[in-house]
């Protein structure tokens, strides 16, 4: 983050983008890129330290569903609903994380526990179909009628540009959190923990607390991303926000982009969404399956041949052996 002017320039360029782009479609794609980049970044806060979670769609689902349910049934503004959803996600993260870390459940056992968590959340959403709409999904009660084009209390805007700036802000916030963690003692503690837990504990790292901290931060941000996703799409269903498919999508995109560098998850989001959209434009139809077919194939190839991801690989080529500046710390995700 040394060349600050470059960052300021990039952000300014992004900020004036909606003024230049009039196509709603392009704006839509950009909003999605930012929201997903944010969620992927949130996942990587854990993933980069070897805490591979297959359960992040659970947090995303909580973010999206709690906000929508509170709004639909209690008329509670998303401005209050979002903190509640984030708090619930944090609570769930502690509930699942604390025993996991306390009892040293790591590696693929941790992945499987979080996978079960996804299934629990998804099944609960489906089981409460009288309120949540089950697998059919649910739409937040819209206030955008009779000429109303926006409502700040309902966090609903007809203009996609508003969501563009919200999503942009959220994404920058995600990168800021990444940087804060990257420059904190927590990062060194977690790096030690991810390589040798006992050794880290022996030099005074509180392993459980360090892991729990990143898990809670990651879960909170993911729930936040899920909430904005729900507000933006104005429609959520368990398959799009709380399924194993979403959990796998998160993991795939991050691996494709690279989870050890700050902009890696963003690269992953750009890469996957552009691939999807390019396929949609060129081939159309039957698209859902074709892009996933390619994703699946590439996930396999990436893990075998390029475990540090696209950006991770590029950056390593550019500046080799510069471990201190937040470059790829290790050759393979642990």
């Amino acid at each position, binding site marked *: 983050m040394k060349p600050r002017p470059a960052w300021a320039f990039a952000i300014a360029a992004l900020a004036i983008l909606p003024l230049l782009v009039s196509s709603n479609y392009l704006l839509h794609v950009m909003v999605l890129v930012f929201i997903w980049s944010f969620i992927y970044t949130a996942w990587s806060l854990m993933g980069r330290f070897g805490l591979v979670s297959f359960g992040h769609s659970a947090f995303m689902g909580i973010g999206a569903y709690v906000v929508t349910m509170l709004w639909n049934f209690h008329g509670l503004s998303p401005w209050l609903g979002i903190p509640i959803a984030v708090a619930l996600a944090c609570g769930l993260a502690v509930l699942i994380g604390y025993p996991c870390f306390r009892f040293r*459940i790591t590696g693929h056992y941790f992945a499987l526990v979080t996978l079960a968590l996804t299934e629990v959340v998804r099944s609960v959403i489906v089981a409460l179909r009288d309120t949540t709409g089950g697998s059919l999904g649910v739409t937040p009660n819209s206030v955008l009628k009779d000429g109303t084009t926006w409502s700040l209390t309902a966090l609903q805007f007809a203009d996609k540009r508003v969501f563009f700036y919200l999503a942009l802000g959220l994404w920058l916030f995600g990168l800021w959190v990444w940087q804060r963690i990257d420059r904190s003692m927590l990062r060194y503690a977690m790096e030690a923990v991810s390589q040798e837990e006992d050794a880290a504990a022996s030099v005074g790292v509180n392993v459980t607390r360090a892991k729990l901290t990143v898990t809670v931060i990651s879960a909170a941000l993911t729930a936040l991303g899920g909430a904005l996703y729900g507000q933006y799409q104005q429609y959520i269903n368990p398959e799009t926000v709380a399924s194993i498919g979403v959990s796998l999508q998160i993991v795939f995109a991050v691996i494709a982009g690279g989870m050890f560098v700050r902009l890696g998850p963003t690269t992953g989001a750009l890469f996957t969404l552009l691939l999807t959209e390019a396929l949609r434009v060129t081939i159309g139809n039957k698209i859902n399956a074709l892009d*996933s077919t390619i*994703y699946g194939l590439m*996930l*396999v190839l990436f*893990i075998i041949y390029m475990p540090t991801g696209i950006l991770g690989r590029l950056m390593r080529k550019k500046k080799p052996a510069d471990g201190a500046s937040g470059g790829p710390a290790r050759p393979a995700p642990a």
Partner: protein
Amino acid sequence: MAQFFDIFLLEAVLNGLLFGGVLALLALGLNLVFGVIDVVWICYAELMMIGMYTVYYLHNIYGLPLFVAFGAAVVLVGALGMLLHVLVIRPVLNSEPINQLLVTGGVLTFLQAAATLAFGIEFKNLGVSMPSLLVGEISLPWSRIAAALTAVTAMGLLWLFLKKTYIGTAIRAISQDRAIMPLMGVDASRIYLTTSAIGGGLAGLGACLLVLQYDVHPAIGLSFGPLTFMVCVLGGLGNMLGGFIAAFIFAQLINVGGFVWSTEWGYVMAFGFFIVMMFVRPQGILGGKS
């Protein structure tokens, strides 16, 4: 309380028992692969899905007799298991366990999406209806009884194979000590390949049993996959007897929970139970301290 012990509850318990048999069979293949190769095939249920499509297409579209279709499915999925091992598992055999998990996650996505492309998202029904066995007021579908019986038979045969044949002994030996066995003249890569074939074959057999009871669609793997590896982990990964017991516990939770509340709550109970058990006994119900 009187109504709690009604005949329908008994039916739910018996159906759970039969469902447990099927789950146990599904877990068996995954457990075998894990025990020997030390890799979790997340895409195990997707292999099964391919098997179910094989049966459907051979029987319903090409008109082959059901048993020929079953045999073909077992052989084909067995071959797929070998292919999976050679193309995907072998290159990551020595990398981090989590990479092995993720790589099969990629295969899961790939197979599911490829099946959607190839076969469409429609639910396909084999159209073979089997009668139910009526015991008093309890009705038990023959398809489930046959499935449970096949599952138990297959488990018995696998046990005999592992205990009585040379290659079975080698498989058990290598699962006990990966490093030493090659020094004893056992070709590890051949054993891995054989194990993958058997694991795939068991998935194929599971497919034959499931296709009699459920419609085939590309996402069916997601209904059985998580359940299968949670059964394995609950039983202690690689521990076949543990997996067997865990399968019945899971099946009862789902069936009885589904009977008392609703199917989804049955699943919530089962997965919740899994999470709690991971904390209480992370090594599995029968697993030793590692």
